[in-house]
């Protein structure tokens, strides 16, 4: 079993943490996901996909606020990994964040897990 490594992001992305668990790259976000931070999520995902990581977990459990710009960056991430045959799982328990998915009917498109352990237990399709 691979317990992965935990790395601090560069200072610019100081509120993102990256780890590798099983065959999933886990991006743990904290703080608020809006126009201020969404572009960084976008860049990060583009970087991961470019370096061949197409199975991502975005851990939103540390995110206390997300608006539609934040949601948009997650939609973009899903499209990007899928177009490379990969997948995106979300970890989210915060009601206020889940509600944004629901209000936009996008809770039906995304797969939610209650914690990272559960997400990275999902077998990677190859």
């Amino acid at each position: 079993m691979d317990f992965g490594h935990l790395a601090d992001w560069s200072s610019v992305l100081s509120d993102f943490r990256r780890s590798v668990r099983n065959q999933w790259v886990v991006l743990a976000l904290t703080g608020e996901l809006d126009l201020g931070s969404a572009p960084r999520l976008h860049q990060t995902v583009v970087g991961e996909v470019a370096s061949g990581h197409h199975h991502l977990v975005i851990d939103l459990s540390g995110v206390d606020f997300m608006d539609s710009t934040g949601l948009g960056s997650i939609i973009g991430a899903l499209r990007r990994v899928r177009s490379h045959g990969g997948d995106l799982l979300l970890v989210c328990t915060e009601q206020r964040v889940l509600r944004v998915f629901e209000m936009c009917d996008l809770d039906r498109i995304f797969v939610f897990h209650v914690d990272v352990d559960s997400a990275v237990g999902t077998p990677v399709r190859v």
Partner: protein
Amino acid sequence: MAGIVELHVPALPEYLQMVRSVVGAAASTGANLKPERVADLRLAVSEATTNAMEAHGLSGLEDRVTVRCDLSASRIEVEVADCGPGFDPNSLPSLPDVNSPDRLRHESGLGVSLMHHLTDETIVESHDDGTAVRLIVHFGD
């Protein structure tokens, strides 16, 4: 207790959080508003302010964006105003069905409908010299 709070911020994303805090604080002064409704209002204001900032950014405007909270005994009204180029709120494109694979092509276009969802009343007044969005939440609902 009632009062008007007005905030002018640069059209830069790093000020969004401040806008949400001020609106949250202003709304909480009206002790009648439930925390969930304050959260909804904060989100609606975040959507409107994001649009206002983007409108300034796209037009290269240096002007600040204005957020005005007007709290009365029965409701809070937050007006977000910009001096961008305006838009026609009645002819926004509708999004493809969630089940369509095309849906994922649309990372944006959710803000205005969310505002309507989240508030009791959302009034958009847009002209070619600016837009004012009024977000209204009644107390006691």
